[in-house]
């Protein structure tokens, strides 16, 4: 955020937000950035101020978490509907109740239909890289949509991890000068924002918004390629880990994928054909590419760090199932809900999922479509296959 040096940053700077804003406010106070920092009285106001600043013609960033994102809800849709390229660092944390401050994906998963592009980072390096790319994706003339750059609460946000930084000038050159479209402060060319839009044109505007999200599919890859030129680090829609000849695979987001990699390496060393698919871009959901990536796999466990209670399984699982529905070749698929409220996912837990997948591959039988794992109580499976 310091290197991007946005014009305006509006945020509610205490819990449930993280040290992101605390640290950034120090940069502002020390004169390292010339950002106008607005400390608001709530997250709803923070996003409202971001929207106002973006309408005025500024490059705008903010950061939040958990209840904070929930309180922004109404304004998230407005930011997207007004096509403001705001970027938001979302430190993924659980939603109350019960009160919990630790990492899970309930906050951003709940916002998946709000019209924001969503990128999920595995570690601190990627959170940094994604945040810089997010600015370019959001501001691209074929997109002009807000971007949420997500990382795991505590596991990524509060831990010390090795990280390679680019120098300030490289980042500033990469993000470039902000180009405002129809800014309110351009008083020579007055415009109206937030006008009433009824049966006559509302749907056309919504369609245009959906088209912009479709356009972003190409742009996220274009920007990633450009970013590779300055950083040496390449990114795709998703990461495939030992997927080439994998017979069984786990699909999982963010930091937990790193732990799964450790298990994959150990099982591969024993000759087991296991793989990992880690989605990075969740909105827009690259359904074709992800389906292709799973086309030769026999059994898949999609693991969700959030639930959609009452549905067949968690949000990531539902996306994958839906993406594969019209495919001729489909892997057998199960869902595991894990890690809610920061519950740790340990190596033996992951091995157990792979063992279950191996049984499914061999027998063709699924015991339970979706279940909670690493949890106390009776077997928690629901949804008989």
């Amino acid at each position: 955020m310091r290197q991007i040096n946005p014009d305006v940053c509006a945020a509610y700077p205490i819990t449930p937000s993280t040290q992101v804003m605390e640290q950034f406010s120090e940069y502002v106070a020390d004169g390292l950035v010339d950002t106008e920092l607005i400390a608001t009285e709530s997250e709803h106001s923070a996003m409202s101020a971001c929207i106002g600043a973006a309408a005025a013609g500024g490059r705008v960033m903010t950061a939040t978490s958990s209840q904070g994102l929930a309180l922004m809800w109404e304004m998230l849709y407005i930011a997207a509907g007004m096509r403001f390229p705001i970027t938001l660092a979302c430190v993924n944390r659980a939603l109350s109740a019960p009160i919990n401050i630790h990492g899970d994906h309930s906050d951003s998963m709940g916002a998946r239909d709000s019209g924001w592009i969503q990128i999920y980072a595995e570690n601190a390096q990627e959170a940094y890289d994604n945040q810089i790319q997010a600015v370019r994706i959001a501001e691209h003339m074929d997109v002009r949509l807000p971007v949420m750059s997500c990382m795991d609460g505590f596991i990524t946000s509060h831990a010390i991890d090795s990280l390679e930084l680019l120098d300030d000038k490289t980042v500033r050159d990469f993000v470039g000068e902000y180009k405002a479209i129809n800014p309110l402060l351009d008083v020579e060319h007055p415009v109206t924002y937030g006008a009433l839009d009824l049966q006559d044109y509302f749907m056309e505007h919504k369609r245009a918004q959906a088209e912009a999200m479709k356009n972003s599919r190409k742009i996220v890859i274009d920007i990633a390629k450009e970013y590779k030129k300055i950083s040496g680090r390449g990114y795709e829609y998703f990461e495939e880990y030992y997927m080439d000849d994998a017979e069984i695979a786990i699909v999982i987001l963010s930091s937990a994928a790193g732990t799964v990699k450790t298990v994959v390496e150990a099982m591969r060393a024993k000759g087991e054909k296991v793989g990992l698919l880690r989605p990075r871009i969740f909105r827009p959901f690259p359904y074709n590419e992800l389906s292709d990536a799973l086309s030769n796999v026999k059994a898949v466990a999609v693991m969700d760090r959030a639930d959609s209670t009452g549905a067949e399984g968690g949000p990531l699982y539902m996306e994958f199932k839906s993406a594969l529905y019209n495919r001729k070749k489909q892997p057998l698929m199960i869902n595991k809900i894990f890690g809610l409220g920061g519950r740790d996912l340990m190596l033996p837990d992951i091995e157990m999922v792979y063992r279950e997948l191996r049984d499914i591959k061999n027998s063709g039988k699924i015991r339970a479509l979706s279940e909670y794992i690493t949890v106390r109580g009776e077997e928690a499976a629901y949804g008989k296959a």
Partner: protein
Amino acid sequence: MYEATEIRWHGRGGQGTVTAAKLFAQSAMVGGKYVQAFPEFGPERTGAPVKAYNRISSKRLTIHCGVTNPSIVVVVDPTLVGTTDFTEGTDEKAVFLVNTKDDPAAVRKKIKLKGGRIYTIDATRISLETIGKPIPNTAMLGALAKVSGIVDIKRVLDDVKEDFEKKFPEKITQKNLEAVKRAYEEVKGE
């Protein structure tokens, strides 16, 4: 394959245990290692037992779960000896670095430990004599540099200096550096 030195720190809120874990990781990182440092967060209360963790490896670390089988255990607070099981999850090759007035044999007897290697350092006394307050974290860093052999003591001193200079006056920084050096010299093994 996954290979790392895993360290678990046991302390009490207010003793700088988390800061020590972060500084140790930083020194190892500057020394060319891949590192992680993370606390076990809960309600933050002065005096309550806290834990923090390090992973240090010559290979890139992707693993992100908690540390359950540490090869090094650092006990920052002497009153945790005999009141918490800081040996949990360790094997017979584990190294224990304990802040206590006692010598290693006495600690071994008190916690009935078989195997492992115990090192002791009276870090509270050192911190009282140098800093003037019972904040033993920097002294423990010096002792850990010696015991672990992972980082160079010069590097630890540089990192403590750099970190403390940002937050504290010169005098306090110098006293902490003195604590690091003394602990490095005074740590006792079996």
